[in-house]
């Protein structure tokens, strides 16, 4: 290629070392792409001055209000070829499965219309096609869209979701994450593409309490697999495990690690589980993969309101549905409905730029649950209130109502 490359002494240092180097990749692209030549120049400049030089703006595709992250250079006079360097967010399939064929098609499209730089994946789970001029966005997106892929979320919208590998390759999986992911997300397509909510809203799906998708801390509605009957124990495999590892290992790594001390190693090297007190934490099952599995009566626990730092400090989600089945079409429909009620309630009651969890914090879990028509449940708390600062004149009516609800 013709365009002269910039000196990048600092970035060059990132080409050494055993980890694959993004700099080497960028240099490879720079051979054919002036945009990347200048991108490297600007990045080197950032390294030297320790500052970023992108600013936002507007860029989008026809029909959609979001999904493109526009980036304009503040130092385009120095690095004109990368003066526009937008990102297109594309939603992958649940579990991030690909054939080499489809990946190659992405490469071809992006080589043609963009910089050739693709992030797999963004922290919210998007395929990020990074580095596009304003002009090329539409063409790039059209081709990707024809491949069967759609735009991801950005701005005050329902965001691209993530689900763990789960059913596809994990024995711990307690529900069909892929189905849940698609059914839920594809019911909010309008809210993904036309940002009109108070702020972003994320769903995440993990097949069990190991929460490989970080859903409790990083999503507004987290769906995690669990079970409510007994752990399945294969006592023969327990014995094998004890034999292979020794009793001491089993005691130190399984028995004493149960958070509720629900496990006993019997004298005959079989395992006793106090299932009434098991909190489905997954630990013993994680360690003894052949001997133990989640129970058979499986379903999900749902938490609401997780998010990161701004503006009131990190928030984890809170249990709002201790257990629900997720097997029949009806069950899945109910899950979608729950998502919808939450979003609708929040859209109505949330302030601008207020995440669902911040709203719950502001109005109180009580009012949130009432808005959703969900009964309170002691599983939603670590413990009941420790202070008397509450107006209780409705106590008798409330108790009567609960009694009736239970009876009828």
């Amino acid at each position: 290629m013709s365009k002269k490359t910039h000196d990048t002494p600092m970035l060059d240092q990132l080409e050494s070392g055993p980890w694959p180097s993004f700099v080497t990749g960028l240099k490879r692209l720079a051979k054919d792409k002036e945009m990347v030549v200048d991108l490297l120049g600007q990045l080197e400049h950032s390294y030297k001055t320790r500052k970023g030089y992108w600013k936002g703006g507007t860029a989008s595709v026809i029909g959609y209000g979001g999904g493109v992250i526009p980036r304009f250079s503040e130092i385009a006079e120095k690095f004109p070829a990368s003066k526009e360097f937008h990102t297109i967010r594309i939603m992958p399939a649940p579990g991030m499965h690909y054939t080499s064929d489809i990946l190659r098609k992405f490469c071809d499209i992006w080589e043609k219309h963009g910089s050739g730089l693709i992030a797999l994946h963004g922290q919210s789970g998007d395929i990020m096609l990074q580095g596009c001029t304003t002009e090329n966005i539409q063409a790039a997106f059209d081709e990707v869209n024809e491949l069967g892929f759609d735009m991801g979320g950005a701005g005050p919208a329902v965001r691209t979701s993530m689900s763990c590998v789960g059913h596809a390759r994990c024995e711990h999986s307690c529900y069909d994450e892929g189905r849940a992911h698609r059914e839920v997300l594809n019911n909010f397509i309008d809210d993904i593409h036309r940002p009109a909510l108070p702020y972003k809203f994320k769903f995440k799906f993990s097949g069990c309490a190991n929460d490989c998708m970080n859903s409790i801390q990083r999503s507004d509605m987290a769906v995690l697999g669990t079970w409510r009957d007994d752990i399945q124990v294969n006592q023969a495999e327990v014995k094998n495990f004890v034999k292979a590892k020794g009793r001491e290992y089993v005691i130190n790594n399984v028995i004493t690690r149960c958070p509720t001390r629900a496990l006993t190693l019997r004298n005959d090297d079989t395992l006793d589980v106090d299932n009434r007190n098991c909190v489905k934490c997954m630990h013993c099952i994680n360690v003894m993969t052949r001997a133990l599995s989640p129970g058979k009566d499986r379903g999900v626990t749902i938490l609401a309101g997780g998010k990161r730092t701004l503006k009131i400090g990190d928030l984890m989600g809170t249990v709002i549905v201790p257990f629900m089945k997720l097997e029949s079409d009806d069950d899945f429909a109910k899950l979608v409905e729950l998502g919808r009620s939450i979003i609708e309630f929040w859209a109505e009651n949330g302030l601008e730029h207020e995440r669902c969890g911040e709203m719950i914090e502001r109005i109180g879990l009580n009012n949130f649950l009432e808005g959703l028509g969900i009964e309170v449940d002691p599983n939603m708390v670590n413990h009941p209130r420790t202070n008397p600062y509450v107006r209780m004149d409705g106590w008798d009516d409330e108790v009567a109502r609960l009694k009736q609800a239970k009876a009828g």
Partner: protein
Amino acid sequence: MTTQPRMPIESGTPDHFQYMHPTLRRNYGQWAWHERPRPGVLHHVSHTGDQVWTVRAGTQRQMDVGTIRKLCDIADQYADGYVRFTIRSNIEFMVADEKKVKPLIEALTKEGFPIGGTGNSVSMISHTQGWLHCDIPGTDASGVVKSLMDELHAEFIHEEMPNRVKITTSCCQINCGGQGDIAINIQHTKPPKINHDLVANICERPSVVARCPVAAIRPAMVNGRPSLEVDEKKCVCCGACYPPCPPMQINDPEHSKIAIWVGGKNANARSKPMFHKLVAAGIPNNPPRWPEAAAVVKKILRVYKQDAHDWERMGEWVERIGWPRFFQLTELPFTKYHLDNWRGARASLNASTHIRF
């Protein structure tokens, strides 16, 4: 007649089965157990009797098409043409035949993709945008991650930690990288410098005022034009005002430092999920290799590796030995900045005589 613009096909999240390895597809929801024959390799067995071996390799996440095509070539030649990516941008190749594992590993290794990230290893660091793309970054995620993964390469390809280690980075205090066993995050240490000339043009002032968590911003007239004013005594330098109002320049080559946090945990395994806690700050934001940050991370990992019990995640280990001992073992100073003074801080204070001497 003018041509109609093409309207998008609002297809949403695509069907995963079409891209899924046939053995996975066939055994969907039927897996029985798994083991790890070696670092970077998982062996899953199905109730149907089917088996699958997964080989996991690290990538640089921000990949050029050349890298991706190389990975596709390997998939085609050694792994039936299917791959998947993990939440940490590792790539996974699935094969239904154990004999395919070795050649696959060799091919990946030859092309410079480290095999590992499984079990009790240090997996790939969660990656954010940084100077490469974000409009508000205090540092470069790609560079920090590359530098650290170079240093932690041995811990990626081996499984020698007490439990899995999940490291995250965030190039501003927003924390797109999330909670981690170790988190390496930008921490601004000076209030934003306001570019008053720009405020009037760019900012919706009320919305900036509303973003500040400590109500330190108020509208003001500066040189006869509407601008903003920051109460520098109140300001906690969080940078929340910067995205809605770029003239609130929070990023500073000198004063945007790196802070290191420890003990975040997302899993519900054993203990409940935990937030990470501040352990070190004031670390220079030093491209291109951030040696000071790397040194602290490595020190913490070394101590954890030596002292923690099997299956103890970083935060669980510290809870067992106590924070005083953590600071002692890592030789990090404990300062007044470690005391929480944000909302709910009281819950972090020791209201007991439980003390280790």
